[in-house]
């Protein structure tokens, strides 16, 4: 889960890493709060919306504190209103600087360890720079572990020295670099980060300033990172949160075919299949390995609340969950809709694996269609569109 920038920066500050002075308008309705920001220099207005890719979002505006400020603020607010999961506007002092470094800690799936990555030439277009000058990147595995409590922020001395040298920084910054890395590593471990990225990291005088921060926390750590989970939830839609409460993962897509699938891989492959056949999925929904009749009904409810949905496709391969249970949930859900005379969708089921026969018997006297493969289901779907 991705944490809004202002929360991430509050944590950096807690760990002793310098960040620009800022104020936050979390509801987009606080008038001109820039006056409460110390100083009189230029400021950055930063719309707090989930930003997955490292590219210009158009939601970051630089402004002098002059007459034009209010109109810039208002126009940004206007544009942010279309984002249901906008977490507000962060107004930050500008930190003039000469050097912008890229610095991150992340998990590398190949080695299974944390990795330190830095590049002297950070800032904009960083992904292009990764591709175009790989030999300038400093990358090293770190023996960081959560379980080594008390020891976890120890970065081997040679890695500190080597990373520092790779950046060609003035010698007097070395102690500062060392404590920056220690702080970052401690935060990375203690906050269960999968990615902790500062870009740009500005050099001003003898200090480093984190001008932006991308903090991605492990969903699996929610049980011990309760506060972080809550803070990250502002970036999630009501549907995603409702699904998560039932152990499911949901993501909206643009199309008209509501999809309910078990397993992330099969759910992704189902969406790919539909798109390849010029059909358009309305969502991604993985019901997970602990699905129940209740959770599947909740999933169908989330799918059917989407006005664009015209047909519902259920694709389940029984293994840890049983197809009979899936059929039961689908039957109950659509029977209830029928009673209320609200049945704008026709469900089409593709069920295989454990419990298929049970499901077939249950569905025999219903008008719910059971297909034995996705290709036959696609033919059915076309008839309803």
């Amino acid at each position, binding site marked *: 889960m991705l944490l809004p920038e202002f929360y991430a920066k509050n944590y950096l500050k807690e760990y002793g890493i310098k960040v620009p002075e800022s104020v936050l308008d979390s509801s987009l309705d606080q008038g001109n709060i820039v006056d409460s920001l110390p100083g009189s220099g230029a400021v950055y207005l930063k719309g707090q919306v989930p930003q997955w890719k490292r590219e210009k979002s158009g939601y970051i505006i630089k402004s002098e504190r002059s007459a034009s400020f209010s109109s810039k603020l208002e126009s940004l607010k206007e544009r942010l209103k279309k984002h249901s999961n906008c977490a507000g506007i962060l107004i930050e002092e500008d930190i003039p600087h000469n050097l912008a470094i890229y610095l991150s800690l992340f998990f590398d799936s*190949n080695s299974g360890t944390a990795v330190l990555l830095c590049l002297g030439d950070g800032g904009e277009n960083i992904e292009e720079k990764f591709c175009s000058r790989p030999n300038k990147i400093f990358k090293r595995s770190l023996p960081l*572990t959560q379980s080594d409590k008390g020891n976890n922020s120890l970065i081997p001395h040679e890695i500190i020295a080597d990373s520092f040298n790779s950046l060609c920084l003035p010698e007097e910054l070395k102690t500062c670099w060392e404590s920056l890395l220690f702080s970052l590593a401690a935060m990375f471990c203690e906050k269960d980060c999968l990615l902790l990225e500062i870009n740009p990291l500005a050099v001003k005088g003898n200090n480093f300033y984190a001008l932006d921060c991308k903090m991605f926390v492990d969903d699996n750590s929610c049980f011990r990172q309760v506060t972080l989970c809550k803070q990250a939830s502002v970036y999630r839609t009501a549907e995603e949160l409702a699904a998560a409460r039932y152990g499911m993962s949901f993501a909206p897509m643009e199309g008209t075919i509501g999809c309910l699938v078990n397993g*992330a891989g099969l759910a992704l492959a189902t969406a*790919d299949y539909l798109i390849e056949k010029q059909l358009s999925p309305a969502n991604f929904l993985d019901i997970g390995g602990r699905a129940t009749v209740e959770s599947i009904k909740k999933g169908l409810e989330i799918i059917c609340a989407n006005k664009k949905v015209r047909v519902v496709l259920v694709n389940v391969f029984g293994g840890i969950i049983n197809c009979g249970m899936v059929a039961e949930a689908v039957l109950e859900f659509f029977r209830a809709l029928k009673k209320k005379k609200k049945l704008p969708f026709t469900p089409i089921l593709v069920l295989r694996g454990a419990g298929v026969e049970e499901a077939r018997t249950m569905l025999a006297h219903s008008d719910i269609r059971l297909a034995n493969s996705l290709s036959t289901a696609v033919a059915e779907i076309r008839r309803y569109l």
Partner: protein
Amino acid sequence: MSQLLNCSTRIMVQGLTGKSGRLHGLNCLKYGSRIVGGVVPGKGGSFVDSIPVFNSAEECINKTGAEATLVFVPALHTIEAVHEAVDAGIKLVVIITEGIPVHDMSWLKVYLQKKSCICIGPNSPGIATAGEAKMGIIPGEILKKGNVGIVSRSGTLTYEAIMQTTNAGLGQSMVIGVGGDPVHGMSIKEAVHLLEKDITTEGIIVIGEPGGGDEEEAARYIEQHVDKPVVGFIAGVNAPEGKRMGHAGALFFGHKGSCAAKIKALQGAGITIAENYEVIADTLMKKMSV
């Protein structure tokens, strides 16, 4: 593939008395796996059907000679349980549990490597040597002894590939679900290495997902070391980039980890990519008959 798992491998089940542990532990036994005991602290002395339950891994190993452990212990206690089993001498660990924090798994992975212990998972459907034994939740009914080796990061797509190869009459030699979490034990590359060496395996299916660099690493290995026909499938070509879809990984650096990069790497290594998931076995059949 008898070197990893066969019908004489002595297996213990950690978390045998839980809902999943009991159901799938007994299913494994029914399939032919040699399940010798269960480990559940506080439940020692009891039985699950005919399987004796012990309080600790050490006791179970001493009494039953267990060499491998199948882990259903809930995420909060998985690391502890595996740690205990490995210290007591277990050499093969298969972790079905999902939801283990990545930082904890990273620590465990380093520890397991130090102890030269093979680990599959977490968040894995398990492994199976078709016709002999299985460890995990792969439905036994769809397995058929044959000549296709399957390596997959996705659980349900593993079943899909098994069913297709069974229906096509090919069957499976060995199935390895490496697991969908960002940090996992055996990599796709290591699994492919086992299948390349295995004499019963004549064709290999590799199923990947977005995120990480497992597929790319495997592609480099296959290009240099694998002579058997290999078919690949990558789910999630149309997934919004960066968004974490279920357990499918999300962190991309540049183009690394994207489906396009994986497909390009696999194709570059001479691997045929199945057009969609319903034709994985067909694609391999065609390739094997050439």
